[in-house]
């Protein structure tokens, strides 16, 4: 078992045409996925990121985050346990974010016993 980060990128334009009922249905699907991952014992953590663009620090130079120009913004993450990448991807495939046009980046967390 290793830990994998799932980074969820949003495209706000995907949501503008949804009715309140459709938004609630979407919310329920997201929550149901989280409950499934929790009940399955493989959800290690999750956070929603604040909606601001954030800051980028280079050397001593601080600028506003890189997101304002791009369509997709990093909206939040999950940390899940999985045997390998295939397994992690399989656990990601039924996430409703994909159904609603979002992108999920799956990244394995480096472990101390990892061999190069």
């Amino acid at each position: 078992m290793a830990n994998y980060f799932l980074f969820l990128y949003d495209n706000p334009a995907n949501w503008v045409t949804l009715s309140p009922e459709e938004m609630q249905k979407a919310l329920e699907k997201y929550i149901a996925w989280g409950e499934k991952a929790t009940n399955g014992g493989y959800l290690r953590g999750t956070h929603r990121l604040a909606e601001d663009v954030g800051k980028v620090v280079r050397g001593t130079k601080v600028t506003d985050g890189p997101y304002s120009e791009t369509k997709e913004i990093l909206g939040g993450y999950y940390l899940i346990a999985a045997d390998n990448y295939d397994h992690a991807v399989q656990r990601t495939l039924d996430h409703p974010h994909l159904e609603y046009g979002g992108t999920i980046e799956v990244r394995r967390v480096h472990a101390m016993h990892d061999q190069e």
Partner: protein
Amino acid sequence: MDGTGIQPAAAAEVGGSVEHLFRHESGRIISYLARLLGPEHMDLAEEVVQEALLKALQSWSYSGIPSNPAAWLLQVARNSALDAIRHRKVLVDKEPALIADITAASRPLPAHDNALEASLRDDELRMIFMCCHPALSPDASVALSLKAIGGFGVREIASAFLADEATIAQRLVRAKRQIREKALSLELPSGFDLKRRLDSVLDVLYLMFNEGYDAHQGEELIRQDLCFEALRLARLVAESSLGSPRVHALVALIALQTARLPARTDSVGNLVLLGQQDRSRWDQHLIAIGFHYFERAIAGTEVSPFHVEAAIAATHTRAPSLAETDWKPVLALYDQLMQLKPSPVVALNRSVAVARVHGPQAALAELDQLENEPALRNYYLLPAVRGQFLAELHRSEAAIVAYRRALELSCNAPERRFLQRRIDQLTQTDRNAPGALRR
């Protein structure tokens, strides 16, 4: 709640999410903001609510639903409204007063604030009366009520009306423009004006219900939602200071009819007529609501068409089966309805009661009188009912002709399948009749 102790049907919950929460809160917050910002800024109110819902979706999907989601949404919408006022300078003349009002209201909210609840209910009531103002066309009123108070999306309204989205969107734009041009206000009517305004509200809610219940087009699920929304809004009026026996009768009528919806289609989506319906699938909770309001409706001396229609629905609901229905009072009620609100559709429904009391032959004679009604010319139920009476008289061939005529008119897929099934059954009976050689 409304003090009756009758709660809405048990909500299906996912992770603490209350059924239709977004839809209902959207309507409440739009109504609240429309009062603060003025009805001419309804678009801004809608925009701000949409933003609040999106924020909720984005953050609750990770963290779960907060303990008081309604207060959360209201707070976020208020802040967005405040932002819009400050940064976009949309309301230059009213700005200082508005900022003061919204800021004063922006304290953290307790989990249950009865005064706030009452105030939001009052805002919704005002919004109902404005959206159903007699200066607007009934169609526009239904669409606007569904959008602004019901929280329905344009696509959902369009699918309920089987109209395209652009048509509905245009209808909404026009209605809002009329509100601005005619300077319709959110003040509740009183005195002389009250009856006219209340009549207009009840007519619109009745139309909304009928769009859901009767429309022979559109998606089944969204049509049920229309019935429930008409019920919710009618109850809101009934429980307000403007409630009257007539309003209670409308609530009773909607609740008793809507209670039968679950039994109206079978597991594969086929239409099931009243006589064949599994009455155990009628919604007992809605029936309880219906009878509760029916009792209140008949407490006074007033008799409105809603009273009579509710009484007809109540008679059907009380009967253990269609065969055991007491049809004489039903026919008497239809006679009364024809006096209060004569219409070809009422006459058509009455003919069914005539058939049960005086036989199908007498009922056919009633139908003959409706044959040239322009309002029924393209109504599939007229030939369908004729087919039913003819079949009861064992005039299979004529019945098949009538059902085929019904099939040529506009009706939805379950209704088409129903008519086709009747034709098939009659064809079958014909073949099995003595003298028929073919199988």
